[in-house]
């Protein structure tokens, strides 16, 4: 059992990292579109400055999740692969359009506007569809009959719980990304962009928390087994809520290093990320031992133990090799004043 738990923890870790990076990624693409016609405040500029070097790295995480599912839990990959054919294909199509047009928009200056709209709009739909995987794994929409599995799409798209998840995904995407971009603008000393993104975060924070409550409310009716287990972990849920309040408060505190400016966005980003970490830990814990309720558990889907050990060894080796690369990447794009405070209005493609 210990090895299965280790494996699902790794998978959960990938999902969490991707969820945070992807919300920032798709959110930044969306804001870049929203503020396109207001070049003076530089909000689009800041969003692109974050997005250009990071989207490839973010995209790699989604591949890492897919590979982790089929290498750690091959039987679950069978079920998920079968039932996710339609939603998965739609996600892939949107992802292809989004990534390609994001690159194109940086290359073809004159057509930047339509290209940014295509990538921004297709991008914001992706989190809503991606998160649908969660309610699908709650089991209500999957039909198991004599060894065959299928997804009841009509049932899925008439479920209030599904819409609560979609609403939560999109509002969280916009909330987290505006928060990160507020921090990124402040570090870049783009104060107009900062005040715009700070305002967006203040509006979107409460919306996302309402969506979270809506998820719990609909979950109680539609997937009581997981609702019940989450409520058992009430301290974690309260911790998550507390972190949300700290994050919110941080946006109103006076800035430490800048006079007359409100907000400590770095603290807000950290608090809100921890908020999502606590909540998704409580959710993930309640989801165990099921991968797809009630047929597929982490024990029944687990790979061969010798394969697991080989894969786990590569995780350790891979982490050791990649970690310095990530640090270097961080120092060049998140922490280098020469990159953050570049004065040119045009972004390098």
């Amino acid at each position, binding site marked *: 059992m210990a090895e299965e738990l280790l494996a699902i923890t790794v998978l959960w870790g990938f999902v969490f990292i991707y969820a945070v990076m992807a919300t920032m990624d798709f959110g930044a693409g969306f804001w870049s579109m929203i503020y396109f016609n207001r070049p003076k405040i530089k909000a689009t500029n800041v969003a692109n400055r974050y997005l250009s070097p990071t989207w490839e790295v973010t995209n790699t995480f989604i591949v890492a999740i897919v590979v982790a599912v089929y290498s750690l839990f091959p039987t679950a990959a069978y079920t998920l692969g079968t039932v996710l054919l339609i939603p*998965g294909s739609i996600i892939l199509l949107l992802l292809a359009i989004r990534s390609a047009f994001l690159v194109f928009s940086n290359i073809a200056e004159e057509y930047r506007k339509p290209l940014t709209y295509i990538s921004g709009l297709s991008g914001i739909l992706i989190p809503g569809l991606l998160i649908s995987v969660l309610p699908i794994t709650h089991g209500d929409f999957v039909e198991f009959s004599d060894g065959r599995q299928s997804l009841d799409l009509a049932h899925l798209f008439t479920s209030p719980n599904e819409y609560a998840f979609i609403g939560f995904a999109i509002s969280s995407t916009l909330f987290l990304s505006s928060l990160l971009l507020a921090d990124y603008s402040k570090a870049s000393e783009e104060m107009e962009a900062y005040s715009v993104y700070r305002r967006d975060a203040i509006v979107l924070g409460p919306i996302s928390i309402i969506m979270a409550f809506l998820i719990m409310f609909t979950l109680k009716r539609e997937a009581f087994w997981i609702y019940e287990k989450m409520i058992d972990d009430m301290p974690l849920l309260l911790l998550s809520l507390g972190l949300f309040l700290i994050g919110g408060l941080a946006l109103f505190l006076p800035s430490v290093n800048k006079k007359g400016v409100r907000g400590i966005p770095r603290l807000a980003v950290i608090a809100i990320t921890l908020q999502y970490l606590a909540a998704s830990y409580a959710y993930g814990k309640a989801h165990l031992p099921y991968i797809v309720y009630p047929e597929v558990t982490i024990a029944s889907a687990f790979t061969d133990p010798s394969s697991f050990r080989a894969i786990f060894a590569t995780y350790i080796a891979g982490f050791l090799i990649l970690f310095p690369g990530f640090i270097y990447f961080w120092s060049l794009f998140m922490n280098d004043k020469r*990159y953050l405070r570049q004065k040119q209005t045009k972004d390098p493609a």
Partner: protein
Amino acid sequence: MAMSDLLIARSLFGTTMGFHIIFATIGVGLPLMMLTAELLYQKTKDHDYVIMAKRWTKAFAVLLGVGIPTGTIAGTQLSLLWPGFMEVIGKVMALPFQIEIYAFFIEALFMSIYVYAAERIPPWMRISSLVLVALGAFASAVLITNVHAFEGTPQGFRIVDGEIVDIDPWAAFFNPSFIVTAGHVALSAYTTGAFVVASVAAFKMLRTPFGTRVYKFHKKALMLSVIVGGIFSFLTAINGHESAQYLHEYQPEKLAAAEGLFETQSYAPLAIGGFTDRETQRVKWGIEIPWALSFLAGNSFDTVVVGLNDFPEEEWPPLFVHTLFNAMVGIGSLLILLSLIAFVWNKFLKRDHFPRFLMWAFVASGPLAVLGIEFGWVFACTGRQPWTIYRVLSTADSVTTAENLGILFILFALVYAVLGVAVVFVMLYYFKKNTVIDDINRAEQRNVPLYGSNT
């Protein structure tokens, strides 16, 4: 499962791969050209080489915009369309996928560093970043091809009563045809990357007055790419010969289908060209070279080459693979010949002007190289039919139980068409706006960013 659903699933995945490998192959080949140009620049300080590196980097970045998402599609579609196959692969052969993720990360991290931090990092760091990009691209090609190699020469597990037992993931990883198959893909990708560059350079030379600054720039690019392409096409051929010998040993019916050989025999003839005819059991309209196939398969004329009749007909690969195989070998040979002519013309005859027909041959070389890898890939995968894992798992048992895949096929084909057209337009647009002359001016002025430029 109706036959048509299996066929649609194969067509859909085949279309994804057929589209993806164009970008994947150039994505492996181009970084080597960029690295060569960067090194030449550091050595000669000739600005033309750093301009080449910059322009190829831009092209590479655009191609990645399609290559990365289509690769993501391919990796995920494996599970969506072939859940039966991926359940086995997940248990036995997950290592290459897993290690490939690290290669992706290295490529993605250092590609961004190379492009967006080019002007902030020292030259040695730029070269190192580029080396890591090229290495990451190379490793992902080698690793994903290893899964293909395993499909042909599976090992590292046993099947007892339908259950997979005695799994040794590293034995599966180092399956017999790993090195030779992965080598074939990597070498042919370098060949293709080089000839794609040669195509563009030759086309530009035809459109530019002889002897001008820009003409000389393209001439340097052409010579560099033809030399690199010549070396790698030659190495691909040597490796291809070895690949055929592996088929002879491990997948004899695939070699028999590739050569249109029905009767098992020693002193077997090699059929070049023509079409395999199922009724008369021979290759029509082809040229036969006596004894040659036996020699190629086992290095001696009395080598016994197994024919298709030794296998039940329902396990034969489709017979049209003979034509695909010939087309692949034909293109490869043509590319070697082309590089040899160019080399002799330039170095021994000391002519600085290539004749027009040769220039047009260079223009054709890039598209031909891409066609060559398409033929080779379709041959390699249809030649393995009816299996996904040779003699272990059939394609029919691998496919999804979901039906009505037709609409998905149409949607994906449509999106690939849009991306294919858009990528061409974006590329033409960018290079028309940012001409070689613009880049020469930027490179010769100090303090003007070259890599960050886009007008």
